[in-house]
């Protein structure tokens, strides 16, 4: 049983966590606020959507990456008008001033009339607090915004990496468990609906792609987290081996 994981060394584990970190870093930047010109330029020039690791392992992710990459490729250079189109697409869907066709808050999906600040917001607030995080603008912004949720996951991936490095495997396990719970109970309770609405609402193919990337990436991360968790479970017995490997 332990045979397969004995072949895995800590570098692999850390690499995998790094992959997760970069996914969440990219996603949080796409969702926390309107895109800056610089972000879009970086995305275009780095071709990041062609290179996302494991993207071919999930059909949704694959589709999203293709759409987003094609959308970026279709711009010869990112002219001001192109940037503005993308910027407006974000504003229209997630900021206002009109009613939002794809509200980026969880409670908008769990309550009628698309209310903000519902029990989901409170639960998310507590999940953040457990790891010592709080919104800068506490009380005014709703914690269950997709951008903050992704930011939170991003920070937890960093936390996971340092716990592994510090060989705090018990804490790492519980941190991973919390991430699994956060994905299962919170993100997945609304992300499919959100992504569906975003895909319909987006005028720009780029954001249609991003919607699919988001849902696909979370599906992927569910697998990655399970793998990490399982690895830890098994490595409890073979702890010395693992540490030696490092």
């Amino acid at each position, binding site marked *: 049983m332990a045979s397969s994981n004995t072949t895995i060394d800590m570098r692999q584990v850390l690499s995998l966590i790094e992959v997760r970190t970069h996914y969440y870093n*990219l996603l949080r930047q796409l969702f926390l606020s309107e895109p800056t010109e610089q972000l879009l330029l970086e995305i275009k020039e780095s071709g990041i959507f062609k290179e996302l690791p494991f993207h071919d392992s999930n059909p949704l992710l694959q589709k999203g990456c293709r759409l987003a990459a094609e959308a970026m490729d279709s711009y010869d250079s990112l002219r001001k008008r192109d940037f503005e189109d993308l910027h407006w697409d974000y504003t229209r869907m997630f900021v206002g001033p009109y009613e939002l066709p794809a509200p980026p808050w969880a409670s908008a999906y769990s309550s009628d009339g698309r209310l903000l600040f519902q029990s989901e917001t409170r639960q998310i607030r507590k999940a953040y607090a457990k790891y010592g995080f709080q919104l800068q603008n506490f009380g005014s912004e709703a914690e269950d915004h997709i951008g903050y949720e992704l930011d939170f996951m991003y920070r937890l991936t960093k936390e996971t990496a340092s716990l592994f490095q510090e060989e705090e495997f018990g804490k790492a396990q519980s941190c991973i468990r919390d991430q699994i719970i956060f994905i299962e109970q919170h993100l997945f309770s609304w992300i499919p609906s959100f992504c569906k609405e975003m895909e319909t609402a987006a005028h720009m193919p780029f954001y249609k792609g991003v919607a699919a990337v988001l849902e696909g990436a979370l599906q992927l991360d569910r697998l990655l987290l399970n793998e990490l968790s399982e690895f830890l479970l098994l490595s409890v017995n073979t702890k010395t081996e693992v540490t030696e490997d490092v």
Partner: protein
Amino acid sequence: MFEFLNKVKEHKFSRRSFIGAGAAVTAGAVFPASRNKLQKLTAVQAEELQSSEGEWIPAACWHNCGGRCLLKAEVVDGIVKRVKTDDTREDSPDNPQQRACVRGRSQRQQVYGVDRLKYPMKRKHWEPGGGNKELRGNDEWVRISWDEATDIVASEIERIKNKYSNRSILVTGGDIGRALNLVGGHVGTWGTTSWGSWRWGPAYFGLQEGYFEHSINDRIDLRNSQLIVLWGLNPAWSSPGSPTYNFLQAKKAGARVIVIDPMYSESAELLGDEWVPVHPGTDHALMLGMAHTLIEEDDPDSNPLIDWDFLKSCTVGFDQDMMPEGADKEANFKDYVLGTHDGQPKTAEWASEISGVEAGVIRRIARDIASTNRVALLTGWAPARIKNSDSWPQMFMTFGAMTGHMAQPGRMTGVSCHFGTGNGGPRLVMGGGNGVPPAEENDVPDSLVHAEMWDAILKGEYTAGYNDKRDIDIQMIYHGMGATLQTRDGQSKGIDVHKNVEFVVTNGHFITTNAKYSDIVLPATTPWEREGGFNVGNRDALFYYRNVIDPLFECKDDAEITTEIGMKLGFTAEEVYGDVSPRQQLFNQIAGAQVINKAGTDYEPLVTITNKDISEWGVEGEPQKGRITISELEEKGVYQVERKPGDNYGYIAQEAFRKDPEANPLETATGKLEIYSEALAEYVKGIGFTEIDPIPTYNPAIEGYEDTYKNFHAKEKGDYPLQVINPHYLRRAHTIFDNNPWLREAWPNDVYVSTADARERGVKNGDTVLVESKHGKTLRIAHVTERLIPGTIGLMHGAWVEMDEEKDIDKAGSDNILTGAIATGQAISGWNSTICDFRKWEGEDLKLDKLWEPRTV
């Protein structure tokens, strides 16, 4: 097993490139500088966040609805979970709990609505001078910082002021005037608004307008009436909260009720013993017919119908013997009614032809009212929101005076509307002032009349008075509060205006109609997010509300917005708004709150304040003795004066005047009720639109019932054969709540059409119909009903316009798309005098409002 861990090892992807690109993205300053992120807390702070308990906080229910009720919000972790209403006292008919209505109960959906305006936004193609102004209403938007937003507003104020003048800046409401008056002022707006012709006119002939002061008795005295006439009012819809319950007590005490209304309302169903359907805007004619009946049939000995004693002692102008000095004796009311000089007696038959009420019924009601001892003649403002209705309030008073149903227990004549519905009299308990110094004087004298302003702005000329037209060149509009573009008549022209001027700003909660056609929208807090205050209006009770939640997103309250703009204009915060902190303002209001004393003769402080309270609040003040403590007020959120029949708090309007008119004259020219009022006629003439006689003669409304005919006498119908009324509807308080999903479900906002009119047009219940006037078109789903007088449709007041600009058709049922801005008399907006037609819509059926997609672009 470990598919991905193994793949990572096998480097099945280009790790370098990924990390490289990712790092590039990471390295860049990718977030706009000011944006929110998660931050790390201390362990203690994190611990505190984990523990929380709910608290019930008195929450504002602040709307302009005519009710004042108690609302409380259950707050857990700074988030409102649910609301409840008054449970602070035993409930009884004499002292009812002040229960909130369907709208207050939906307020959680308003405050937390996903469509709240969250950040300052700028119309993308705006540029100084307006940019492409035609794009207003359809443009893209950009989120901007408060700093940028106030910069833009201040610099546009400066630019427009310098290029044109302060006379080019129009403010429709709110307190931005505090800032603007510091730099030379602004143009304002005015009109008779909800009151119709009751707003200013009655002061000249001796009645009250019904909002600030009342000509009707209080709710406990209403139970002494044997007959109550509800003339054009439907408290069940337009005054939710306690008023309808109060009426029910009068009914239970034995009153009969006659309801005179174009619509068989819920109030008619609940209270009415008889419904008299009448064509909108013809009430005056109907009442003349009733007056004629009394004059014709009255015999002081054998059939006393007219209260001659009252007429003689308390009024002027009824007949030639009662004319005031210097007036033409022939111009008296009685001779007008009898047609002595114009050859047209205003008989019941004459009135019947206009009002649609059978002559026999007219006579019967007249006799009934005149021969019953104690009658309450109550009217709402609705019949006065009619073009050319300037003489109607005087007519109403005149009939009350003829029958003597005034100023005695169980006898009253006047307005029963809004806060004063069925409950007249001065407030028994009230809040104090907040101590904010008054604003600077506005140096610009110009003010535009609601019913004329859109036209005036488009034409560059407005009516300032009799034979007094002045030029005007509006280039900036600041909507500080309210819903001007939605609630003023002639909305289509209003939209044109908004696509013409150089700059438009709106403070708001949602992308309301005002906001939609703006360049800059500034997100405002609701009272739930503010420090606290009082809600007043209900005579029996004072409502105190506290801060419920933090301001949402980047919303600021209006005073803060004004202050920041003022500062950008080069003033200090103190210069704009004084230096009274919000906390101190609230304290001042509490300390200044007063309640009627036991004897009912004077007021005394309501709240006991100790030195400890003052230091705990961190404010300046003096200790005082009152009825309740601050903490009791903070917890209950209401103080209600205990009432019982025969107590010292009752109110009989104009009681002293009637007892001794000489010693207690009214504030009219003659000191009496003026059935002949030169002052009223002069006042109306001076406004500059149309003129009236000193006695209440009947002037058909412009676009009123008579205009539904091509030829009235031949009974040949014209192009717009129907009249439209705009009932207040429980879905909304004016325009507020129109976007509220629970209310959309409960109140679908159908257009009410009578079965007869529907049948004639082949329209079935549930069909989508196009309603059209000469001013605009709107779509609604038809509610076919027996409850309307045929010839009238009911389009509910306040829906947010949703223009299909290609077809030039509104889809939301906006009442003011149908109204034309035609100013008459004392600047009355004609909401209940518009003529129209409807037909089955051949295009795509409307979906129910509750199924509407969000309002998006």
